[in-house]
């Protein structure tokens, strides 16, 4: 299953995803996707380097599915982190204000 890196930004704790060019993206759809193995290992190594630079906290690989260009975390926990609280569609990334 394809994987992306998820983390919390150090300064404000907001959820971010590792994108191309060592950048952090707010939307999972902008995340850099790699297959498990060498590609995912490289993602993790970049994330750990950036975490050591105090950019983020708790960087980890998560499984995603890619459907028509849309990236969806497969587990409920990461799906909620990528969107926001399911009881409050007015909050979080799903509300477009994160």
């Amino acid at each position, binding site marked *: 299953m394809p994987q992306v890196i998820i983390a919390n930004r150090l*300064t404000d*704790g*907001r959820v971010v995803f590792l994108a191309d060019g060592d950048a952090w993206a707010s939307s999972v759809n902008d995340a850099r996707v790699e297959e498990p193995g060498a590609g995912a290992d490289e993602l993790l190594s970049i994330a750990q380097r950036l975490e050591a630079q*105090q950019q983020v906290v708790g960087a980890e690989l998560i499984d995603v599915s890619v459907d028509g260009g849309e990236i969806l975390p497969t587990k409920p926990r990461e799906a909620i982190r990528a969107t926001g609280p*399911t009881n409050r569609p007015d*909050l979080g990334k799903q509300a477009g204000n*994160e």
Partner: protein
Amino acid sequence: MYRYDEFDRKLVTERAEQFGRQVEHRLSGKLSEEQFRPLRLMNGLYLQLHAYMLRINVPYGVLSSTQMRKLADIGRKYDKGYGHLTTRQNMQFNWIKLEETPDLLRELASVEMHGIQSSGNCIRNTTADEHAGVAADEVEDPRVYCEIIRQWSTLHPEFSFLPRKFKIAVTGSPHDRAAVKVHDIGLILDRDSSGHPIFEVIVGGGLGRTPFIGKTIREELPPSELLAYLEAILRVYNRFGRRDNKYKARIKVLVHETGAEEFRRLVDEEYANLKGGSLDVPQDEIDRIDAYFAPPDYAELPDECAALDAKMGENADFAEWVDQNVACHKQPGYAIANISVKMPGHAPGDLSSDQMDALADLADRFSFGEMRVTHRQNIVFTDVRKDELYGLWQDLVKLELAAANLNLIGDVICCPGLDYCALANARSIPVAEDITKRFADLKRQKEIGPLELNMSGCINACGHHHVGNIGILGVDKKGEELYQLTLGGCSHEDASLGVRTGPGFTVDDIGPAIETVLDTYVELREHGEEFIDTYRRVGMDPFKEKLYAAR
């Protein structure tokens, strides 16, 4: 209520400044996350799913209108315009930015508030009966002793790194509204045969992965010996509590594995060294602190209130609210107004900043500027004139805080669950919202009668599911949220732990399963029985049969 002295003020202000410097060091990279984590937790700052979460102590649930206004302000300025009442009578905010926490803590310190010891393996906020000081059935006011415990336990050097967290609850009424039997230490204030105040000391209760009802290890402890005895218990726990396995580190496991008798012996041995020493609480110190909790300036009123009776006759909705949410007060002509923060379809215990501000104004108008946070995630105005209840209720209706569902199925305890919490395995708020919508009809709620439904999104049991008459526990089974059901729990003086019905239910099936349980109860109940009575009489089998018959 208690007001900070110079020592308290200095301590909290200095801690805010110290944490500000620690945040600076973290942001600059001088501190790693591993080094910083215990420091932020000591100040109540967690990192959750979406952001940092700050838990702010409300000592034994007592909150002034000034403090509530500040919380409203913090919700607007540093969060997303709302806060969440917790089962430890605290308030937490879900969208905090690390870089803003030093300013936030300075603002909190200005109203005598902080997050110190709201996390970590230390003595947490002591909780109390939300009707303390005003309940008609109260024997002795527990707030003075809660404050003494707060002062003793705050930054106690010996107990800052306990094997696990430690929670104390105190009640002074025969009807236990503070769930004292499921705390690490539960204290019940009573009077001895000579009329002097005494504590029954209960140890080793708790919920979580391994729930236990606490055991009484001291029947009659004089208040002057309270701190020495608590210190003795904590010393025994600190020495013998397991540090090798966090799941076995709470005092309840130690008491269970040691046996209550042997545990009592160990405590008594330690206590013999402490008794009569510097931890003795002199009566003049008890009196000094007690003075902070002197009754407000009550008017001399008759207990009968014709104006209230007339309004109840005129307005059925108001009468329903009084009937369900208003409790008897010690003082003639006054009442205790329980304000449900459980509107159908809303997250239990969530208050918007606008509601907080409005509650602060109402507390000033109707309840001497004070309110309480309850462990059932509601608010209490303790001192409302009976002839002003109607005015209060009218304003609560406008605020959508007039649900007449206290202690009914709509009054669900619910943790934040997987929508916010990094520990959770399943969502809890949407399930609670579904159940409260499903049973929104007040007539039906009243027909079902008194019922406590408690829900947690993981085994840590912040939602007290083990002691709900009906408990729901969310679990993760192979990536799917599943909800286990327990029946027969109770958190009061006749405390009991719920028993699991059997296999769990999906998110779509849990609501109908609750319907089945309640239909079964209504069919089986005898005259005057509440749900818990019927369950205790008939046992699990009839419920189990109905729940799983179709499977």
